[in-house]
């Protein structure tokens, strides 16, 4: 059996052309196709563009630093009109691979259908120089910015502009949705701040800088980190040093995110007699968190319960 390679190639090209034709036909279904890297941006997109087809690459149970550039994500990104990600290098280990493999010119650059939340606001903890011996830190600042209500509102405004740019036909609708969201959000902020007042000045030990923006907003102080260095899991010697810190008696609780391991936190909590709080990292991180509003409510309730 000898296969003629040229004939094989022509046949391959014909198949290719056919799938192309089919592909464009099925793509003609109306509505914007939105790909988000994290569920908080899927929730935000839901507020601003409720008619869009929205897909989140990760859940609140997954560490967004360590995501596989898996086939299903390539397939989703291939179809996207807009990709919304936290940015600040949070997705550097997988987003560039998805962009390369999905061959979708629309979501290639921020001039077009790519949107980085961290580029819209001032991030916390930006660094002048970064060295790997510091662990897996981000020079562009902390990317977990969705727990700051004012910064998130800034992101919502910028995202509305981006939606308008990508889908100018629905500009009025996006603007109306933003106005409605901002009103509800601005009403909620003082309510949350009032409720969280007893947390002000409280000290906590947390895992990573996942809730830096939440603590910053509510006036909580993270006195120690379960990770010896960002991205490095808690070691026994590090936990021992945390235990002596906790024994000073001024720490309120140990806080971890829904995707982080409870092992180190439980060990420390047991010995230091401190409550361990698992906060939802994002929408879907616990049963209560079904949208951005209930996510904030739930996080504050859980912190208050430990007080």
């Amino acid at each position, binding site marked *: *059996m*000898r*296969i003629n*390679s040229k004939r*094989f*190639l022509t046949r*391959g*090209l014909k*198949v*290719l052309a056919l*799938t*192309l034709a089919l*592909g*464009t036909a*099925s*793509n003609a279904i109306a509505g914007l196709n939105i790909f988000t890297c994290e569920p908080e941006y899927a929730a935000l997109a839901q507020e601003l563009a409720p008619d869009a087809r929205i897909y989140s690459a*990760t*859940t609140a*149970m*997954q*560490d967004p*630093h*360590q*995501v*596989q*550039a*898996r*086939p*299903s994500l*390539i*397939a*989703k990104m*291939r*179809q996207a009109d807009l990709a919304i990600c936290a940015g600040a*290098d949070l997705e*550097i*280990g*997988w*987003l*560039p*691979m998805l962009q*390369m*493999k*999905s*061959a*979708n*010119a629309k979501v*290639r*650059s921020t001039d077009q259908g790519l949107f980085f939340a961290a580029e819209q606001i001032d991030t916390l903890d930006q660094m002048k120089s970064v060295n*790997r011996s510091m*662990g*897996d830190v981000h*020079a*562009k600042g902390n990317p977990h910015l969705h727990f700051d209500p004012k910064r998130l509102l800034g992101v919502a405004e910028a995202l509305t502009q981006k939606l308008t740019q990508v889908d100018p036909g629905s500009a009025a609708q996006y603007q109306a949705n933003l106005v409605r969201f901002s009103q509800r959000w601005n009403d909620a902020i003082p309510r949350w701040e009032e409720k969280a007042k007893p947390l002000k000045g409280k000290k906590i030990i947390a895992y990573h800088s996942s809730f830096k923006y939440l603590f910053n907003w509510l006036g909580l102080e993270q006195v120690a980190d379960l990770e010896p260095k960002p*991205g*490095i*899991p808690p070691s026994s010697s590090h936990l021992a040093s945390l235990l002596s810190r906790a024994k000073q008696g001024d720490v309120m609780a140990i806080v971890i995110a829904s*995707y*982080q*391991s409870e092992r180190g936190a439980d060990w420390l909590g047991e010995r230091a007699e401190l409550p361990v709080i698992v906060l939802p990292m994002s929408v879907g991180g616990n049963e209560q968190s079904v949208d951005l509003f209930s996510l904030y409510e739930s996080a504050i309730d859980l912190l208050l319960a430990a007080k």
Partner: protein
Amino acid sequence: MTILTMRLMGVAAACAIFSINAVAEDSSLTNPAISAVLEGYYQSAERPMSERVEGFGLGHTEVAMSANIDDMFYGKLTAVIEMHDGETELGLEEAFIQTLAMPYGLSMRAGRFLSDIGYLNNQHVHTDAFSDRPAAYRAFLGSHYFDDGVRLSYVAPTDLYWTMGVEAFKGDNMRAADEHNERDFKSTGVYTAFTKIGGDAGINGSWQAGLSYLRNENGRMTAEEHEYAAVLEEHEHSHSAQYTGENTYVADFVYKWAPNGNYKYQHLSISGEFFRVTDFKPLEEELDENDAYGDEGKDYQDGWYLSGVYQLSPHWSAGLRYGQVGTQLMLDDHFDPQKLKETEVSLAWHQSHFSTVRLQYTNQQGSNFDGIEDDNIITLQYVMTLGAHGAHQF
């Protein structure tokens, strides 16, 4: 006047320095992402078709640079420095450009790059969970097949991941042996076609399966290769495939699992590939009447492996792999079947996801394979990456 010009120049220089700093943060702009891989090992014995030697050695020491060239093109350069018999060799493993903005999910790649056939081939060796590629890769693809050529690929706009592509390569490293330097090789020797599909299986699992075909115009052996075994000896450290044929078929699959799809703490990766290489025997018309290559022995060569790697914690991972390859060695008047079976266990320690120290045990069993005997091999290896954080493939 001169002073003013000088001052302006100073300001301009300061601006230039400032702007360099400003863009230095983002490799997607004008500043390339530069990274290096450092690898070293100690191995208790030599393995067939492997680039590693007995004792201490340096593996793939690699320097890579990549960036978007403009809004249409991405480029990558990977240089590999290897030590062979006291000589330092500089090789180019990748030097390619890829389109970024073609419509309809199409993309093209040109230059030197890793072929997209099979599962492991387009992955960089330093991301492997074992010190060497499976025996089938070493026998049929020279560990990993990269070459000068072009690729056209297409990704379908479907929820089920579906990609397909065709490639054409120079194929120098895939040529059958030619010890008399008298063979008229085709200058474009290798054509490939591949397709992969994939998706998620629930929230915990993801999978991908692929089929590939490689046509090697120069893969068929010619008669009168009396010293073929001696030729093999000489090519031991090259990247060339050592057993070729005109047609190669590859089937591959991979399944990855992590609790809740969270890869931070534990995850499992199972992969396997099957190779079949046919049409390697010299054509009948080229043979003398006395020779009878065609009738004896199998008319195909094959190989496969199955690998499972489990990350127990962010610091530790363990792997188990079995693989075998069955090839046909051409002698004066007949083909001799040979077989190599490898069972491997590896244990790796990761301080971060940039550093790995690996201990590996390999049991190899050969029947008439390059004269190797059953052997137990211990490999101790480190693989570390520095510089830009590369994005990994599935």
